[in-house]
């Protein structure tokens, strides 16, 4: 593995292709990123009652996320402390205990080891059960319904970690009644590195008109003109890179653009219009704009969503060249059942496993990884310099903001923070504003 300052050059504009292939780099990612960063677990709405649980993954670790009796949420590694067997095989459910199928040890909702067969006869009553509870995730927290966890006890609070990104997120998370995710999630695989879809969903409006030329052509609506890059989108937008590597991109008034049919878009537009006054009052005109626009966003390292469309995804890494995609639908709690149905179906038909736009993206992502199989190809760098020098602080909006919609501002930001994390930098150093030392200039 090359030194980090040879992996990421020119403020994130160049990434060495080994980032998308190398096993050693991936091991470092598991250690320095997935064992330290806040990772998306589930949404509170999916486990409302005590004992409700979901199983998911953090990096390559299997975890159980379960509502506690006191209403809080706990998360635990899904592996028995005795010989390591899986203690829960379901995607979701409600339970008082998780009983291991191997020797019958059982664990409570809080992870405590509560049952051990033949505890007296075999252990002579001397087993210190308190030493053998399920390994807890170090910190678990919820931000307005979105539940995250980190394996690092030293990690800053979730609020601190989300940082500036909250200023944007609130503009829909704080809608009256809040939001929820509709599950169960679809699950599928991608034979690509986990960073590629994260950067794409977070900050790549540039691909939309070409990759999705066919889909937008038949869906119609305000973005149809983008098909084949015929024209620039009707309204302007911008990209943002924020502290800790989060990415945010915005298209004015685009929210309903990818709902499947004209009248579905109308229904969603009507909903937004009806809600808008409340949002304006709450956030003022600038931020309220976000509520009516279309977002692409990624929360570092592997959680992405498109507000408006309304797809919500986690890219679960599985080695450096593959991942599993979990896909939910994001809706507002107070929307009508019909509107939620419209969004759930539109999401499935666009970015679901059989979605028309999903199928446009997948191969591009995979080939960006698979071509690194070539030894000579792999010695090269990828390039994301678009909009460099045309971005910076903004009077009203936090983070580094691009001048125009088509910019790789957020992507460069993502790789700058990737470099700090992979370096093993202390959290305090990672926190300093994102003007980075990675200015080594590439020699072609």
């Amino acid at each position: 593995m090359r030194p980090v300052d040879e992996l990421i050059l020119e403020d994130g504009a160049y990434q060495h292709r080994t980032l998308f292939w190398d096993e050693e780099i991936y091991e470092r990612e598991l250690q320095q990123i997935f064992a330290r960063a806040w990772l998306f677990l589930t949404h509170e709405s999916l486990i409302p009652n005590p004992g409700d649980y979901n199983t998911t993954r953090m990096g390559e670790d299997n975890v159980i996320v379960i509502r506690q009796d006191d209403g809080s949420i706990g998360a635990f590694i899904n592996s028995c402390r005795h010989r390591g067997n899986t203690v829960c095989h379901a995607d979701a459910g409600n339970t008082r205990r998780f009983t291991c199928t191997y020797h019958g040890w059982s664990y409570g909702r809080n992870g405590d080891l509560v049952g051990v067969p033949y505890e007296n006869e075999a252990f002579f009553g001397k087993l210190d059960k308190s030493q053998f509870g399920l390994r807890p995730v170090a910190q678990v927290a919820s931000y307005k319904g979105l539940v995250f966890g980190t394996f690092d006890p030293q990690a800053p609070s979730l609020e601190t970690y989300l940082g500036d990104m909250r200023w944007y997120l609130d503009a829909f998370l704080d809608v009256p009644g809040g939001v929820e995710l509709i599950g169960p999630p679809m699950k599928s695989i991608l034979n690509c590195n986990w960073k590629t879809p994260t950067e794409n969903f977070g900050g790549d409006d540039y691909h939309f008109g070409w990759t999705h030329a066919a889909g937008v052509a038949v869906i119609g609506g305000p973005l149809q003109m983008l098909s084949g890059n015929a024209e620039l989108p009707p309204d302007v937008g911008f990209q943002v890179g924020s502290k800790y590597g989060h990415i945010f991109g915005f298209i004015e008034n685009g929210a309903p653009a990818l709902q499947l049919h004209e009248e579905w878009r109308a229904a969603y537009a009507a909903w937004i219009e009806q809600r808008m006054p409340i949002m304006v009052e709450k956030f003022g005109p600038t931020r309220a704009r976000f509520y009516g626009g279309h977002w692409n966003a990624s929360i570092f390292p592997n959680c992405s969503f498109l507000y408006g469309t309304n797809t919500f995804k986690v890219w679960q890494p599985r080695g450096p060249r593959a991942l599993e995609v979990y896909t939910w639908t994001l809706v507002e709690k107070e929307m009508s059942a019909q509107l939620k149905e419209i969004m759930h179906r539109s999401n499935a038909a666009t970015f679901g496993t059989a979605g028309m736009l999903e199928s446009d993206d997948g191969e591009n992502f995979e080939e960006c990884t698979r071509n690194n199989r070539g030894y000579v190809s792999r010695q090269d760098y990828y390039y994301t310099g678009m909009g460099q020098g045309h971005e910076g602080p903004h009077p009203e909006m936090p983070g580094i903001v691009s001048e125009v919609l088509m910019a790789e501002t957020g992507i460069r930001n993502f790789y700058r923070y990737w470099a700090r994390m992979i370096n093993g930098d202390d959290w305090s150093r990672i926190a300093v504003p994102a003007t980075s030392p990675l200015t080594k200039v590439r020699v072609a």
Partner: protein
Amino acid sequence: MASTVEKTSAVAGQPVDRETHFEIERFLVREARLLDQERLHEWLELLTPDIRYLLPVNEIRYRDDTAPIGTATGTHIFDEDYRQLEMRVNRMDTKLVWFEDPKNIARRLITNIDAEWTDVPGEADVYSTFLVYRNRRQRDETWLVGAREDRLRLTDTGWRLARRNILLDQRVVLDKNLHLMM
């Protein structure tokens, strides 16, 4: 082709007669062949205007787990009506679907056909199992196994597909997409 009258004299829940079974088998075999050959507009003609085309997600729950949790209203990978299916076909016509150019090879092997009359005259519930194989680019492969619960309707122009519920035997879909009809 047996007349509708003849059919409607059939008893609900009863297996269809041998002749009808043969017709239904022909229908499913030819439908599969149309899809393999990418003759999508001809395929649309085999659907009724009120078709419902479904593929539900197989969420994994313990056997004793009945109560649904969270907001889960169920998720479908396909939840389509005629208009959505037509949109998919029109999309292929744009010639802008890079994923399908060069053309992907897909082959649908249909087996275990089992049909019985419903209480709706001229409509049969048809079960079948499938192996769908896709081969693309140099050597990418997709293998899909499952079953289909179809509702077939006998119209003046022959059998038509009125409903299809696809039971895809996977929790995690082991490919980058399901960009093909089953």
